[in-house]
C-alpha cells in the first residue's frame, strides 16, 4: 500500500465536455461532487481515475504527479492504484462475487488474495454469497461487491460515481449508514459524485457544486446550503426563498447587515462593502422560516418577522410544504414544517399568521 496523501486537482477543458474545477480532497475526507445530470461530474471522476485525459491541468496525489499537461505526463489507471465504483458497478459478469474481488488483487501474493477478498466481502456485510455471479445478486449486493473490490486493493483514493442511484430506496438508506460507518475507518480521500444534495449533506465533509462544467462553490455542505455565494448556487442548492431588498444599515461590530424588505426589517448575516441604499438579493432556506416562535411569545423583536397568508399546503410524508404570500410585498415564501406542528398550529390554506426568520440563516448573495 502506498503512503496516504491528499489529492489535488485542477482541470480545465473547453472541447467536448466543458470543465473548469480546482479543489483538494484531504486524506480521510469525503468530498461530494454535486450538480445536475450532464454537468460533467462523471467526466471529472473519470479524469481523476485516468480513464479520460483533460485538455489541461494538474492532478497530484501528495507529491506524486498523476497528470500534468505542461509536462505531458499522465499515469494510467493501473499506475494510480485507485478504487473506482462506476454508476452501475462495472462488475465482471463472467466472474463470481469472490472472483470479482480477487481480480483486483494482482499486486499481492496469490495465497493472500482469497483470504483478503473474503475479509472485505464480510466487511461490506456480504455474507454467504461469494460464489454467486453478478446477475444473481440484487442491486444492493452488487454495490457491496463493487465496493469490496475497490477497497480490497487498499487504494490511494476511492472514487464513487453516483453510488446510490441504481439501488432501491430501502437499500439506499441502509447503504448510507454502511458508507458512513466505512468512511470513519478509511484514511484515504474519498470522492463521491452525486446529483442528490441530500446525499452530500448526509455523508460528505466537503462538497463542490458543479453546473455545466463550472465549479460554482466549494465548502462544507451545510455552509454551501446556508451561505451560497451567488444566486446560481442558491438555485442549484434548491433554495427558493430568494428576495430583493435594500441595505439600510451596516453594523460591523455586531456582524449584522440591516435590510428593508417591503415594510419589513430584516437582520442578515454581515456582508462587507455594501453601501447604504444598495439593492441586494437575499436568501433563506425553507427550514429558516419558523412558525411556532411568535405564537409561543419567544420572539418579541421587531425585525425578521413576516406577516403571511398561507396559499397552499402539501403534505409529504411527515412534513408539510407551505407556500405563502408575504403581506406588503409581491413575493411568495416557501417553508417546511413537521406535520405534527402544522396540525398543532392549525395551519391551513387562507390562514393569516406571522413567521419568524432565523437570523443566522439569512444570507445576502453576491451580485452577479
Amino acid at each position: 500500500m502506498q503512503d496516504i496523501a491528499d489529492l489535488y486537482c485542477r482541470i480545465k477543458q473547453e472541447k467536448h465536455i466543458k470543465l473548469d474545477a480546482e479543489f483538494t480532497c484531504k486524506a480521510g475526507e469525503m468530498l461530494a461532487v454535486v450538480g445536475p445530470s450532464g454537468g460533467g461530474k462523471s467526466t471529472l471522476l473519470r479524469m481523476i481515475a485516468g480513464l479520460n485525459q483533460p485538455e489541461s491541468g494538474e492532478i497530484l496525489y501528495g507529491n506524486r504527479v498523476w497528470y500534468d499537461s505542461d509536462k505531458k505526463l499522465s499515469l494510467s489507471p493501473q499506475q494510480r492504484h485507485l478504487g473506482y465504483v462506476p454508476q452501475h458497478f462495472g462488475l465482471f459478469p463472467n466472474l463470481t462475487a469472490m472472483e470479482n474481488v480477487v481480480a483486483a488483487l494482482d499486486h499481492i501474493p496469490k495465497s493472500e488474495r482469497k483470504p483478503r477478498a473474503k475479509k472485505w466481502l464480510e466487511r461490506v456485510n456480504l455474507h454467504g454469497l461469494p460464489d454467486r455471479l453478478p446477475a444473481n445478486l440484487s442491486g444492493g449486493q452488487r454495490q457491496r461487491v463493487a465496493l469490496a473490490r475497490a477497497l480490497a486493493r487498499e487504494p490511494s483514493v476511492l472514487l464513487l460515481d453516483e453510488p446510490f442511484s441504481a439501488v432501491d430506496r430501502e437499500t439506499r438508506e441502509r447503504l448510507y449508514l454502511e458508507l458512513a460507518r466505512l468512511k470513519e475507518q478509511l484514511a484515504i480521500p474519498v470522492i463521491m459524485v452525486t446529483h442528490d444534495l441530500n446525499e452530500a449533506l448526509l455523508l460528505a465533509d466537503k462538497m463542490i457544486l458543479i453546473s455545466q462544467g463550472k465549479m460554482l462553490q466549494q465548502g462544507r455542505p451545510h455552509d454551501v446550503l446556508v451561505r451560497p455565494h451567488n444566486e446560481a448556487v442558491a438555485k442549484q442548492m434548491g433554495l427558493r426563498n430568494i428576495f430583493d431588498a435594500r441595505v439600510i444599515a451596516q453594523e460591523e461590530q455586531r456582524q449584522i447587515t440591516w435590510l428593508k424588505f417591503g415594510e419589513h426589517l430584516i437582520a442578515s448575516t454581515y456582508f462587507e462593502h455594501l453601501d447604504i441604499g444598495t439593492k441586494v438579493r437575499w436568501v433563506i432556506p425553507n427550514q429558516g422560516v419558523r412558525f411556532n416562535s411568535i405564537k409561543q411569545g419567544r420572539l418579541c423583536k421587531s425585525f425578521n418577522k413576516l406577516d403571511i397568508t398561507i396559499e397552499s399546503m402539501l403534505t409529504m410524508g411527515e412534513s408539510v410544504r407551505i407556500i405563502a404570500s408575504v403581506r406588503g410585498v409581491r413575493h411568495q415564501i416557501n417553508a417546511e414544517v413537521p406535520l405534527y406542528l402544522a396540525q398543532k398550529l392549525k395551519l391551513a390554506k387562507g390562514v393569516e399568521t406571522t413567521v419568524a426568520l432565523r437570523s443566522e440563516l439569512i444570507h445576502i448573495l453576491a451580485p452577479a
Partner: protein
Amino acid sequence: MDWQALWLSIKLSCVTVIILIPFAILASRFLAYHHFIGKSWVEALIMVPLVLPPTVIGYYLLVGLGSQSWLGRFLEQVLGQQLVFHFSGLVVASIIVNIPFAIQPIQRAFESVPQEVRDAAACCGMSPLKILFKIELPLVWPGVLTALVLCFSHVLGEFGVVLMMGGNIAGETKTVAISIYDSVQAFDFASAGQMSLVLLLFAITVLALTTSMSRRLGRAHGSRHS
C-alpha cells in the same frame, strides 16, 4: 463422392479461420473501442465483400495477384511461387472474402461489453492484455463462435472466388463446391447429391450446435451485464 475435394475444402476452411479469427478479434476490438476520422469508410470497406459478386472479387484478386501485376510478381519472389491457381492463393482469397463475416459478429460482441466493466478492469490494475483474456474474451465468446462458424461454412461453400482465383486443379484448388458443379456438368447426380447432402447436414449440425452453445453461455453469464 469426391473425398479429395471434401478434404481440400475442410483444409482450406481450417487454415482460413486459424489465420483470420485472431486477426479479426484484434481488428474488431479496435473498431469497437476507438473512434477515428474515416472509421465509417474503413467499416464500409470491410463490408464490401458482402455486397460485391464473388466473381468480381475473384477477378480483382486474379488480376491483382497474378504474374502480370507488380504485387503478384513481388509475392512470387518472396514466397517462391505464384499465388493464383495455387492453394495459398485460395487461402488469401478466402480470408479477404470472409473478413466481414469474421469482423461483424465479433465487433458487435465487443461493443456490447459495457464501458464500465472495462473501466473497472483498468482501475483494478489489470493490464490491457489481461483485460482482453480474462474479461473481454469470455464475454465476446458467442460472437467469436458465430464468426468462426460463419467463416468455416462460408469457405466450405465458396464457389465464385475459388473458381476465378484457383481454377479447377484436383488436389490443389478443386474444392467440394466446384466438385459438385463438375459432377452436375458430367450428369453425375448421385455424386453431386451425396456431396450436397454432406454440406447440408454439416450446415444444420453446426448451426444447431452454435445456437445451443451461445444460449448456454448466455445463461451462465446472466442476461444482464452488471
